[in-house]
């Protein structure tokens, strides 16, 4: 492949299961060294896309090139250069933590001695050295996730695919994973990750696409997306009583946009405090007021009319 050519290039990529279309013609380009994200709610088609990129799911239509190669014809050659952390861990329950790494390395044809060295380094990297001789089952969710990430690195991959790397982890475990992924990024590894956590996408991704219903609804850097589809600040108002709707009319003209959710009203504004003052000036007395920065959650809400996590 030539210099500057994208590592991953998809055009009109489609995945169908029977007559259901899970990925509906997406265009994606991932460049060397960047951290690229797929942000979207459950069922958006993120995993289906990742599996096609990982060469374990043949595309139903469109074009896909990975590292300049064809994922179906050159599957083994591409997979040799990828590291994959699937949504479900798929660790080997009959092996110990260390054996999971050494055995996986052998699948890549890595010599035993090198495999042992890599395993030791990676265990250290994901802070699992103390559990090296334990079986996989007794590990916590966060530990299993870290082991899966370590396993994805065993072949020194050029691209690491991470499907929801921190879903289901407690905040502490999430931060540890983020920190490790951040280090990988600094080492120049190309990261492709999916998430339905907007803070994860904002923290880790240089560029991302927002997916919904198998399609891409927006693309750009987190900052650019927020600037384009949200505002600098957002005021969340909660009014006592059943219906937020009743209060919406009284907020007309406040900021760029007003979004009414079942449990709160969002005001998209450039200056949050000024907007809060204006709300009181109009004689409204919400039970809860929160001023925060505009986020990818707002972008998603604006583009799809729905929240990322139900």
């Amino acid at each position, binding site marked *: 492949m030539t210099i500057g050519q994208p590592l991953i290039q998809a055009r009109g990529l489609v995945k169908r*299961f029977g007559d259901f279309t899970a990925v509906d013609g997406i265009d994606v380009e991932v460049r060397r060294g960047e951290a690229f994200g797929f942000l979207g709610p459950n069922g958006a088609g993120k995993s289906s896309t990742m*599996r096609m990129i*990982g*060469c*374990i*799911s*043949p595309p139903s239509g469109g074009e896909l090139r990975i590292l300049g190669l064809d994922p*179906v014809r050159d*599957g*083994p*050659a591409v*997979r*040799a250069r*990828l590291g*994959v952390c*699937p949504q*479900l861990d*798929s*660790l*080997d*329950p*009959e*092996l110990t933590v260390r*054996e999971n790494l*050494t*055995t*996986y390395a*052998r*699948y*890549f*044809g890595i010599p035993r001695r090198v495999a042992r060295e890599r395993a030791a380094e990676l265990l250290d990297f994901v802070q699992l050295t103390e559990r090296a001789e334990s079986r996989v089952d007794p590990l916590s969710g966060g530990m299993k996730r870290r082991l899966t990430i370590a*396993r994805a690195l065993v*072949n020194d991959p050029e691209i690491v695919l991470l499907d929801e790397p921190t879903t289901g982890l407690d905040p502490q475990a999430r931060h540890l994973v983020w920190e490790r992924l951040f280090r990988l990024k600094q080492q120049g590894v190309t990261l492709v990750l999916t998430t339905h956590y907007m803070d994860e996408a904002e923290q880790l991704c240089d560029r991302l696409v927002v997916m919904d219903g198998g399609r891409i609804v927006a693309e750009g850097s987190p900052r650019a997306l927020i600037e384009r589809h949200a505002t600098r600040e957002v005021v969340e108002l909660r009014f006592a009583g059943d219906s937020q709707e009743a209060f919406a009319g009284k907020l007309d003209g406040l900021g760029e946009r007003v979004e009414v959710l079942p449990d709160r009203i969002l005001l998209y504004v450039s200056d949050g405090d000024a907007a809060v003052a204006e709300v009181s000036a109009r004689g409204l007395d919400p039970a809860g007021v929160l001023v925060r920065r505009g986020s990818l959650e707002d972008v998603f809400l604006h583009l799809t009319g729905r929240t990322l996590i139900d």
Partner: protein
Amino acid sequence: MVGLPLPRLAGVTGARRSAAIAERNLTALRSAYWLVLVSGFLEPVLYLLSIGIGVGALVGDLTLPGGAVVSYAAFVAPAMLASSAMSGALSETTFNFFGKMKYMKLYDGVIATPVQPFEIALGELGWAMARGGLYSAAFLLIMVALDLTTAARALVAFPAAVLVGFAFGALGMTVATLLRSWQDFDLMGSAQFTLFLFSGTFVPAEAYPAAVRWLVELTPLYRSVHLIRGVCVGESGWSWLLDVAYLVALTAGMLALASRRMGRLLYL
């Protein structure tokens, strides 16, 4: 991704990846496995002792179609060897393979590496044969010790038994990709037992009515028993060539089929 799996058999990398699958099983070996190993070996030995020697005392000697006269135990022992090679291979490739694929989801992780379904199938089969080979070698030692065959014949019978294992292992793997739940194993167990009873195991196939006999002679266990018995009692002319061709074809065909099915199940 699925493609034609057989040409890849030639590749050195393919063989190395298959070896990595077998190596994984070796790493996973824990103490409990030895129990399974011992029980798998004891079963045919018990049949041999109870039926071959016990019933043999009542039946007396048999005259084989070729004219050779052998003791009943010498007649039954090769069949026990063939069926133990069968059941060893089947239990490894159906029960264990099914569990690894559908419950442990082991191969979901493996397919994300360069390893392909055909290489997984070959690796698992090779591994199953290591176990089957152990059973067969031990059983042949007992046969020689009991004077049911000669050491020279036992040496020839060993690769024959390994071939039988390969054929049934490949068959079992294909079956495993077709099974839906553990309940289906009952069905498979019955099929296996039927084969065990009616494959010229305990009586010569010539004793069956012509129509049944034809049917029996088409079954893989019959061909296996025929091959190994021919070697052990030393009378089969050239008909062993047919048995070998049958078993080699069964192995190749089933391996190809099993890896195709695996590809379908894994590459969603």
